[in-house]
């Protein structure tokens, strides 16, 4: 029989566990070294129960949800609890182990109370480099997993005795920026240590049995919330489809297809009709697919649903082995994390547009619009700028889309021009809205942005990883599509060439990279608004 916990104690403990996860993120944000973590906040923190099921999350990044919900469970399949000890911190980044891509490295600390394993503290951080062929570890030419960088299976870098410098040395020898990476690792260890201490206080305050009962109740509650949300959707089968620009290796667009079947308070999401695995690094994992499902269900039907392992109980998420969403561990995946995850969300939104168009927005910048600039500064220090570019949000019923913004699975910020110019061999020539890029409609799609970077060193590596360059953000209910994403290289000699969506180039001093991010799709036919205007005028 399940032990019971009263509604008051449940909320008090939930508050304390959430605070614990939030505090972890504070520690990582303030002390980590990768610019991504410090400027852009590309990190997540979580507490799980002893089985590895998510209990609380601090500083959400929606695409990390899947990771946080599956990482420890998959980890425990490789490292049984008997091998864990108090003071351990294990690092792992294998995509096939409840993961997403190599740069997102997870630190996992088992938390014991009175000798019993009660849960895990998990700190996920996007390292600015994880090795591989190019700085920043976005290897667009990768055709297998090993080309993408250092693969870290569960590795105990820290124990009660302290850091294992030998293992740490192996990791640091295989990534660029050893000092920075060491700082990231120490920050992640410090964060999980803070969480352990907080957990000890919570257990001391409420007693172990009550805390464990509260964890179980948190899952049950999230499950009940999700079931209530699903129950509100009409039963039926809904199909949605959207396309990746290419297979990241010069091929034609790839389809992501979903059939959503709602039956009572349960839902099945069948992605098996999606295309086969891509040759290039645009594949993703079933865990990311599940994260996108969770995000779409929450944003459309239950924004208040607490992130927890219990959320997933009413779902059945099906992917096909060999497909772009379940490619097998040997396939490259680095871009799929933030590109394909967004396309999964798009396919789901388009499925739900059939049954509830009033809840869904038109297509937006469902791409990170990522460019990585790697070069040596005038003081000889190597620096890598990882920069995402938001675009025009899709319009929806009742309002236009916002300009220059990130949507759905990510919310990573930009780097200010004044920081870029101080820390990287780049000059920002301009940053403005890309006027006219939003799709027309009764409500207009948001505008993309236009930013230009000039190279100030002799050899700069530039890597692109973006989508919506071939397949435009869709309009909805008769609205027009938004403008395509476009990156142009303007040589020091004035010649312009278009950059592909997944490409690595070397640029020289004086070259300019012009980024024009996509506009948002419109909502409702253009004429409808004019008619309304005319009617208003007549009356």
């Amino acid at each position, binding site marked *: 029989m399940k032990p019971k916990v009263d*509604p*008051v104690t449940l*909320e*008090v403990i*939930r*508050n*304390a566990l959430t*605070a614990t996860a*939030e*505090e972890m993120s*504070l520690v990582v*944000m*303030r*002390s*980590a*070294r*990768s*610019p991504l973590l410090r400027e852009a906040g590309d990190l997540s923190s979580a507490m799980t129960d002893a089985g590895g099921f998510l209990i609380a999350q601090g500083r959400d990044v*929606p695409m990390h949800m899947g990771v946080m919900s599956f990482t420890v469970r998959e980890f425990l399949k490789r490292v049984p609890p008997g091998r864990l000890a108090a003071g351990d911190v294990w690092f792992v980044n294998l995509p096939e182990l409840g993961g997403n891509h190599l740069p997102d490295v997870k630190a996992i600390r088992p938390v014991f109370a009175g000798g019993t394993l009660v849960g895990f503290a998990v700190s996920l951080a996007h390292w600015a480099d994880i090795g591989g062929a190019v700085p920043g570890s976005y290897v667009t030419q990768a055709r297998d997993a090993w080309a993408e960088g250092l693969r870290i299976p569960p590795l105990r870098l820290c124990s009660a005795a302290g850091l294992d410098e030998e293992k740490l040395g192996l990791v640091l020898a295989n990534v660029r920026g050893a*000092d*920075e990476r*060491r*700082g990231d690792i*120490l*920050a992640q260890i410090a964060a999980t*240590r*803070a969480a352990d201490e*907080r957990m000890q*206080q919570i257990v001391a305050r409420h007693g172990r049995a009550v805390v464990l009962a509260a964890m179980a109740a948190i899952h049950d*509650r999230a499950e009940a*919330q999700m079931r209530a949300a699903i129950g509100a959707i009409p039963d039926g089968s809904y199909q949605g489809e959207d396309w990746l620009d290419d297979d990241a290796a010069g091929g034609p667009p790839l389809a992501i297809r979903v059939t959503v079947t709602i039956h009572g308070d349960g839902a099945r999401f069948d992605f098996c009709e999606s295309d086969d695995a891509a040759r290039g690094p645009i594949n993703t994992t079933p865990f990311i697919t599940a994260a996108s499902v969770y*995000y779409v269900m929450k*944003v*459309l039907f239950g*924004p208040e649903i607490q992130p927890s392992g219990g959320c997933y109980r009413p779902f059945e998420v099906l992917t096909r082995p060999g497909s772009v969403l379940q490619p097998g561990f040997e396939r490259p995946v680095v871009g799929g994390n933030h590109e394909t995850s967004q396309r999964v969300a798009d396919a789901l939104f388009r499925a739900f547009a059939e049954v509830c168009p009033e*809840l869904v*927005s038109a297509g937006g910048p469902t791409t990170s619009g990522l460019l990585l600039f790697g070069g040596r500064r005038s003081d000889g*220090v190597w620096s890598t700028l990882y920069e995402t570019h938001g675009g025009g*949000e899709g319009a929806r019923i009742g309002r236009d*889309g*916002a*300009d*220059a*913004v990130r949507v759905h699975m990510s*919310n990573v*910020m*930009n780097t*200010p*021009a*004044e*920081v870029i*110019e*101080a820390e990287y061999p780049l*000059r920002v020539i*301009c*940053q*403005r*809205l890309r006027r006219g890029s939003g799709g027309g409609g009764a409500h207009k799609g*948001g505008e993309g*942005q236009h930013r230009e970077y000039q190279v100030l060193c002799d050899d700069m590596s530039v890597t692109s990883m973006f989508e919506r360059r071939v397949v435009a953000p869709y309009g909805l209910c008769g609205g027009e599509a938004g403008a395509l994403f476009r990156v142009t290289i303007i040589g020091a000699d004035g010649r312009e060439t278009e950059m592909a969506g997944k490409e690595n180039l070397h640029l020289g001093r004086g070259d300019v990279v012009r980024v024009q991010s996509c506009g948002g799709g419109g909502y409702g036919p253009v004429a409808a608004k004019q008619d309304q205007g005319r009617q208003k005028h007549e009356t």
Partner: protein
Amino acid sequence: MAANWQVGIDIGGTFTDVIARPLAGDKARSAKVATRPDDRVKGLLAALRAVSLEWADVADLVLGTTMITNAIVEAELAPVALISTLGFGDTLAIGRQNRAHLYRLDPPAKMPAQVPPGLRFEVAERLDHEGRVLQALDEASVEDVLARIRAANVQAVAVSLLHSYANPAHELALAERLRPIVAHVALSHQVNPEAREYERAATTVLSASLMPLAATQIDRMQAVRPAGARLHLFHSAGGMAAPSLLRELPLGLAMSGPAAGVAAAGHIARTLGIAQALSFDMGGTTTDVCLIAGGRAQVGNDRMLGGRPIRQPMVAVHSIGAGGGSVARLDHGALLVGPQSAGADPGPACYGRGGTRPTVSDANLVLGYLDASRVLGDGLKLDAGAARTAIKPLAAQMQVSIEDAALGIIRVANSAMVRALGRITVEQGIDGRGCVLLAFGGAGPMHAVDVAREFGISRVIVPDNSSIFSALGCVSADMSYTRQQTLRMASAAWDAARLERLRDELRASLVGRLQAPAEIAEVALIRYRGQSYAIEVPEPDFSDPGALGRAFQVLHNKLYGFATDEPWELQALRMTATVPRATEGAGGGEGAAGGGEGAPAPSGPTSETPHKTTLCSFAGGAIKTPRFDRAILPVGKAMPGPLVVEDAFSTVIVPPGATLTQDDGGNLVISCGVAP
């Protein structure tokens, strides 16, 4: 009558609090009156009359005001034109490209830029990050922009050029051309001399848009002010400043009210020798907490207000949306309190103004903590029946008694406050359990002991004048100015001469505004190369960079549990110039009690006999609980809980297991003990 009073007035959203201290002889006076949002000058005069004074009686008046805060929150902002560097006119619209709501599609993803496209202008010019001129200010483009600004017919213009924090020349040149044609000009290097163009531009625009309001209001006050009476305003960083300065930099008033409260908390901490304290101010809709280390409120530099970023030195008050009006509900097996609030209208069910949903205040009334028979400050009589009726359905759902449901509401509300206390202490690497909880405001002292126990704090202090604490902060304020400037000096490229020059300039800019010898305090903001957030190193020794680096490492290790020998960078310098408040006259805080005008000092007659005994419910059940009048509470006597101490505006709950002692400064010191 000679002008021989020092007066602090805090004009809040609902109430205006006033404390008057005599320079000689007389007893201190205090009062709380309803705020008059329609006419601030009349409200100020009414507050003075409430303590039987005219402005002519006042030598020194310090005013805390929510005027600017409210204008920001309610978006009552004057139209502003913005001048940017060519190519950067849309920086405000792009922002940091993040959206406001992670899991909501219906509300707007971003606030629209405060300046519409038609009022965003660009001039051709360019600096680099070290302030070197890459392109001189182009005269033709300046002429063009000036013409368009004349045509736009705006009162205020903000100028925010790229890298102006490193070289203000172009902004200053533009200002010279703008001043003849517009009433108000705000320059970004003066409002906020720090890197990151979006935040600096947004802060400058916001400040510019408040200049017309600040000018009108401050000029009206100055016009009414008798000659010779000094007037100062309480600014966000926790000190007072000349009205003329805040007229130019109205954003300095954005956190005026909360800053005055925590400044008073800092004052108490210094007086009582408390090394680390947490201020705890709970009101109707929000609860504010702030870390006070070494007798000084923590100062931060970034916050959002009304959805807009503000980058200014401000007391680091952390606000959460939980207060007396927070509504409780059962949701899928968990008791949730807030974020919905009954607000001031209709307010909690017990206000009898039509509210029907159960709130934290209703729980406090049902538990017997609030006394239903008393009339509150603004003539409000509480309705215990309505409170019970509101909680009853919730209790039925939870299958517990109404009292147990009410206890549950309080526990959950308190757990949100504990989470806030955890956050502000973890951020500073401090073990919060060693802090003293300083509780004030209307509801803070009612919840303080339970919150302290839940967090692991052993001592709570409810200071003298706790219900009009911001006014106390005003009357005991020092004159101070604070500025933070981006420096970016690498340890490996230490330039002592440049640093000296920058410090001299900063010092001169601060001291120039004061008319008396000032104490200078510096905080160095240092980080490892590559980090984003800098650590505050107090009292930096700039003469010895090696020692400075070691001090940084020690603090880094304390905050994050590690430190390395890598190169570091002096990212910014924060400097505060303070002129201590003249302590002429007897006054002090001692005479003023929270009970309103003419309340006796603790040295007057006291009574150990409660004025009544009522039934209060605690975790262990309902107990007959004595209630004492704060004004006549004995000094130095340890009084075991349960007991209640009341004045006209606030209620202090001392639950079973805790012990209260009033010290000779009128502060209520509570040892939390443990619940029996």
